């Protein structure tokens, strides 16, 4: 093997590395989608909290929506709006959600809680 061959070999190695890097950068976008499930709380268009699921035991916290405070409860892998200040109580009645792709929405309070995560459904028709 002369010097030229060595250069060629080095070149080929470099080429393979670059291709690998390029493929990896594409692949990594997909791998970021495969992550632990998270409950994402959005109030009036802003993400105010992300909770990685499941959470051991029961816990709850208060979020301030457009019309007042609502209580969000987490129990293991499931999430719900436990109390809301609105008259309709649609979000409270909806109960627990636990599958990635699902969401609970409080329309008067402009609160969205959705579950993002591993192999999610793109959406749910309801």
């Amino acid at each position, binding site marked *: 093997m*002369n*010097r*030229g*061959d060595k*250069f*060629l070999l080095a*070149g080929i190695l*470099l*080429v393979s590395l*670059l*291709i690998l*890097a*390029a493929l990896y*950068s*594409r692949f990594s*976008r*997909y791998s970021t*989608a495969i992550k632990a499930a998270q409950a994402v709380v*959005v109030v009036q*268009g802003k993400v105010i909290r992300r909770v990685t699921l499941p959470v051991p035991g029961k816990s709850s916290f208060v979020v301030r929506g457009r019309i007042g405070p609502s209580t969000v409860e987490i129990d293991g892998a*499931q999430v719900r709006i436990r109390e809301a200040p609105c*008259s*309709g109580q649609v979000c409270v*009645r*909806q*109960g*627990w*959600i*636990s*599958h990635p*792709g*699902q*969401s609970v*929405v409080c*329309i008067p309070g*402009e609160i*969205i809680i959705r579950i993002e995560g591993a192999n*999610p*459904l*793109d*959406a*749910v*028709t*309801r």
Partner: protein
Amino acid sequence: MKRRRLLLLIPLLLFLAILVASLYGRRSREYASDQFLMDTLISIKVYGRDPKVLKSAVSAAYAEMHRIAELVDGFPQPGTAAYNSSDVCRINRQAGLQPVRVDPDVIAMLLLAKKYNELSDGAFDVTVGPLMDLWGFGGDSPHIPPPEQIRSALALIGSRDLLLDSRQQTAFLRRRGMKLDLGAIAKGYATEKALQTLKKYGIRKALIDAGGNIRVLGRNQHDTSWSIGIRDPRKPDGIVAILPLEDAAAVTSGDYYRYFEAGGVRYHHILDPRSGYPATGNMTVTAIAADAGLADVFSTLFFVLPPHKAMEAAARLGGVDIFLVTANRRILHTPSLKGRIEILSGGGYHYEQGR
């Protein structure tokens, strides 16, 4: 010789650099946004290369939905700007008096509604307004109305008396007291208009979720079919089936969305315009069609029909697939969904394989 080989490497490396750069440039980006509109949450997700284009496409799509929402708004306060910009309010106010000149999109919606009113022998009817008001599903305290009031509301329903002139762009409810309610069509129609707006901006991958009315463009970011769950009608966090969807819409009508219970009976907001009472044959019907406006009409139309009639009508009308859960917990779907739709067990519903 050595030098020549070395020189050969330079274009090779250059070529590679370009390849890598182009791969990077082609990286598809996601842009997602939510807005509260038409009494629901509208989520739009788009994919493409240029973030600026994605952003302006989505805001144009929302603007289009906003425009349609204002045209059809049935409940604005009289005297407000919203009241004056609602074509539906103006048509209702002039019922029995005179035809009203309206937006071409309102004419398009009403023509579609009238067509399916005729094709369904009255099972689908946008002149159901007086009945909806009577049951009060739009407000805080829905209730069972007395039978004589239902009878008089039924007398005011009938799309025969909705006169449309597409050349003059006018709509007219012939009798005083008649009232349009576009609840079964407007959201789907607006969703379709929003999607067509995204297309005009060159978007080729998108998902619009309008409060559970789904319209997808192309395939998802993994370049496979969008995976759409169908909600379990009796468990808010449950899914009864998973539907793969490409370039199509899936719209669901269910008895669980707005309802009250009295004497152990569930009374929900999807009223049969022929009987005056909530339709009783199904818990949920999902309609899958190429157009979101059509799918919206179909989901209500087939929900109102008894299950076997819905299956027959879907086959007869064509251009639509349906998935439904009957009131006695049976799962049915049109034959062409077989092998595509995944039915999840565990919901306690009865599904015969091969149907």
